[in-house]
């Protein structure tokens, strides 16, 4: 298995000069290609902060984060933006599609930022919309799409750049049950068929049930890290990873 993320001794404190909040405390994390991992824990446990650190959206105060062997904590802000563009996909809780662009344009934007050729963009975008089952909604603006449809477009956008892994922050939090199941089906399929690595922060039991690895955070520290067989696959029981 190829290592995708290798985080060592990562800590992050907010408001260090006033009322310090230790959001992530000395976290060690190792993720390999093709993992389908849920990051769980109560509110304020540091899930989103850890995802932001792993995605290069925030810098840790301490520790190193190696993505494919490259320490992203050492990159300049501009280099980090470029690194995110080419290596990391993001899915946000509130979809965060660009409201003035159509679904297709939202997905195309990432590939245009990568300076891909038009033919390549057209082919990839069409394939992604087929994967998410929304070929007929490609030219629709986000406001005309349901929450579930918007989140599916967000997944397509996250995958457009062919990233090393996708970070999804509470992707099903704003979705109804049917939309959430549908979205998880799509992501599980992409994970299994294309070996794309997914890491979710979530409270959602439906997501946790589908994950093959569950990392529990409490007070910014990894409380447990469990490998498991998802409920949609033959159940073989759970075993602790460390």
């Amino acid at each position, binding site marked *: 298995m190829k290592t995708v993320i290798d985080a060592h001794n990562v800590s992050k404190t907010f408001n260090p000069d006033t009322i310090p909040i230790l959001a992530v405390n000395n976290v060690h994390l190792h993720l390999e290609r093709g993992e389908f991992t849920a990051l769980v824990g109560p509110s304020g446990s540091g899930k989103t902060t850890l995802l*932001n650190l792993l*995605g290069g*959206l*925030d810098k840790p105060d301490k520790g190193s984060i190696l993505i494919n062997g490259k320490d992203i904590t050492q990159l300049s*802000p*501009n280099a980090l*933006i*470029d690194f*995110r*563009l*080419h290596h990391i996909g*993001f899915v*946000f809780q509130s979809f*965060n599609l*660009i*409201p*003035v*662009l159509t679904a297709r*344009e939202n997905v*195309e*934007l*990432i590939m*245009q*930022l*990568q300076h891909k050729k038009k033919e390549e963009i057209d082919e990839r975008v069409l394939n992604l919309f087929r994967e998410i089952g929304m070929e007929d909604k490609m030219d629709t603006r986000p406001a005309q799409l349901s929450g579930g449809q918007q989140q599916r477009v967000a997944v397509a*956008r996250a995958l457009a*750049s062919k990233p090393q892994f996708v970070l999804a922050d509470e992707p099903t939090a704003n979705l109804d049950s049917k939309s959430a199941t549908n979205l998880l089906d799509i992501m599980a399929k992409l994970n299994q068929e294309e070996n794309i690595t997914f890491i979710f922060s979530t409270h959602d039991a439906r997501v946790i049930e589908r994950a093959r690895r569950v990392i529990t955070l409490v007070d910014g520290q990894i409380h447990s890290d469990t490998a498991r067989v998802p409920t949609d696959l033959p159940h073989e029981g759970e075993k602790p990873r460390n």
Partner: protein
Amino acid sequence: MNLKMAWRNVWRNKTRSLIIMISVAIGLFAGLFVLGLYEGMMSERVRTVIDTEVAHLQVHHPEFKKDYDPKFTIDENLLENELKKIPEIKAFSNRVLAQGMLATTTGTSGVQIIGIDLEDEKEVSRVDLKVKEGELLDPGKKNGILISKKLAGKMKLKVGSKLVLTFTDIENTVTSGAFRVTGIYQTINTPLDERIVYVNRATLMDDLGLRESSHEIAVILNKDEDLDLVKNGVQAQFPQYSVLTWKENSPETELLVGTINQYSSIIIGIIMIALAFGIINTMLMSVIERTREIGMLTALGMNRKKIFLLILTETLILTLVGVPIGFICSWFSILYFSKTGIDISSFSEEAMSSFGFGSMIYPEFPFATMDSVLLIVFITALISALFPSWKAIKLQPADALRQ
């Protein structure tokens, strides 16, 4: 994609964008209209200076203008023959000048006495059009005099009144002559009117003791553009004389044109500063409202240069859409008022007249300064975009996404 996104972002808040676009249009309209007014005023002033006061060119003895000593004359026959051969010259007029004192029973006033040949002068200074009361000078009546309305009021004179002019002749002897007012003239330049009286040239020549010579030849050209060409040609032909253009003879007009241009720049500057604050306010609101979205774009991999360009493009669109509207409005309004004129006599006739301006203003479209105005609008848009764009690129993606 950036341009498409910028264009659509501008129209996300239609009311706000339309207000700022209309502000730009009104600002540009106001700026161009004020420039058009000044342009019209200046053009009219220059026209008046050339056509009714100092002509395009004046030829004098080089010593004459130092203290107006009447003995410094020019050979009018020699000059006339040569000036007639120059095709760029439309008309010219010989004048005899004297500095003197006008006296009546009610008082005295210092005047410049200009001896003219009426028919020549009609072509050069349109003296016939200036007379508002009485008649023009009659060459057959030696003691006729034209005085201005301003002077007539000051000296309590009317058509038919008698007055005495006192001045020194070429022998430096003080001499006097009695004159009778044949007509009262009026121009838009009251300070000049108050100082100038016209008499028949032959009469003044006799009184001064001059023969076949004059003090000044005023020249009107067919085209303003030939000014330097003709000046240099005549000066080269007659190096013994001084040939001066209207700019040299009326430096105050040249100064006024320069001053008005500076005022125009200040007014445009004030309008643009007001506009800039409007644009900055609008774009800052737009950036603040989209903090999360901009943070998300950075998170996805849109670099700071592209974010900066996006906000810059939105600002430019916001500004430049108003430009053609302002341009068209000012074009049509200036075109309309250039024909009908704007009458400001009801509130500033006297003030305008004291500076040599008429009370009807015919604005002219400021073609000469158009490029500069558009450049200023463009630069204003660019400068206005800098702060909101800077705010946008300073956003940290994690912080922006938390909002």
